[in-house]
């Protein structure tokens, strides 16, 4: 098997790895490093349960070949909290009961963390009426910006308020 040697920083820890070139970031996290927070839902980039942060941006780790991201910093759900102190989005999800089975939740939370950063940077979405204005994160904006994360339980009714709450704190 063609192998490739690379370095990644995962949740703050440096890793020197030799991997089969076919290894996705998702399989690296789950199968090689035992970090099973990121989920393999569809494995085709459609469900969002594998969402992680790559150099601070949200991506679908099932479609990211690890070899293509040599030198990158990866944050999975295991690395989001500050010790025992939950990230504000994690706290908001608990406060709003923003999940049922929990399978999509790590992806939802990481996606929301990065989505709020995107909005703070002034990035528009397809729901943004005025491309020149600063986006205001109302329900429509949040739903559009979070459309890459599916919840089969249909917990959107609580996910959206959790994110809205965290965004306005």
């Amino acid at each position, binding site marked *: 098997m*063609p192998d490739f040697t690379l370095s990644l920083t995962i949740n703050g820890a440096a890793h020197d790895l030799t991997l089969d070139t076919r290894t996705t970031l998702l399989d690296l996290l789950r199968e090689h490093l035992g970090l099973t927070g990121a989920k393999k839902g569809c494995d085709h980039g459609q469900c969002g349960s594998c*969402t992680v942060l790559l150099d601070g941006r*949200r*991506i679908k780790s099932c*479609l*990211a070949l690890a070899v293509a991201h040599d030198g990158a910093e990866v944050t999975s759900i295991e690395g989001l909290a500050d010790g025992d102190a939950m990230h504000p989005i994690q706290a908001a999800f608990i406060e709003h009961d923003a999940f049922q089975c929990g399978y999509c939740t790590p992806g939802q939370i990481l996606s929301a963390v990065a989505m709020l950063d995107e909005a703070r940077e002034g990035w528009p979405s397809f729901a943004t009426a005025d491309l020149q204005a600063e986006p205001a994160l109302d329900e429509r904006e949040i739903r*559009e910006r979070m459309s*890459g994360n599916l919840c089969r339980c249909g917990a959107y009714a609580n996910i959206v308020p959790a994110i809205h709450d965290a965004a306005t704190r």
Partner: protein
Amino acid sequence: MRPFTYERPTDAASAVALLGDAGPAARYLGGGTNLVDLMKLGVESPDVLVDVTRLPHDRIEELDGGGLRIGAAVRNSDLAADRRVREAYPVLAQSVLAGASGQLRNMATVGGNLLQRTRCAYFTDVTKACNKREGGTGCPARAGHHRNHAILGHSEACVATHPSDMAVALAALGATVHVEGHDGPRTIPMPGLHRLPGDEPQRDTELRPGELVTAVELPALELARRSAYRKVRERASFAFALVSVAAALDVRDGVVEDCRIALGAVAHVPWRALRTEEALRGRPATEAAFGEAADAELAAADPLPENAFKVPLARRVIVRTLEELSR
């Protein structure tokens, strides 16, 4: 997934040479959002991947005399967020934002977006025949599921559509695609990058073997400041278009001075609606004129049994988009 070796060149000439040396089963790798998926499905099985995301093609630069040069490795999200794009070419920002999801736009590149493959279910299912995947095997879509297939420019061999939203805006804007190949660089004007299926649907584009997309240039185009992308799909977000329209409109004293219009999800290519444009120039900017201009293009439509709805839908989406731009 078939094993492959991975190459990471840092300049375009090396990338072109690496791909050429590797033979026909080598592929350029951008964000991977389509290619890696197709590799998992067995539709693509490259033996070499040449990663082109670390080439110096990751910037958006202003051109002398107006216009923008967008590097092929620019991520879709960075393109849509760029202030210059949002101000001067809102149709382009909106088209990119209409595609995929936030995560995928952070990964996908401009070059990869242009070269993504059709989402025809027969193409992505290796247990089915498909002339695009394997020439001469037949097209089950024509007599099977083709609700989201082409109504314009299709052939006996293939009724698939091109899935990109961004490419529709680039077709309307008359962007220029820059490529690098063994014989040096050349340019291809949009919408000429993509080709109709004819009897060779395996070929999506006019690119020659081994050619690499390096940049897309947007012309200085004043009327593009008043432009929009409208997309109709079966759910509110994160779905491919049933019909989409990219349009720019310049109305003066109630008369259409100039316009640019392209349609998405209706053909094997992003479909520049030149007949609509021609029918509109010099006409009053009214709903009736917009409808007649839409009909001028759609008269050539040849829908299939399951997708005849796309013809009146395209008409309505064209009219509504032009009405909004003329307000």
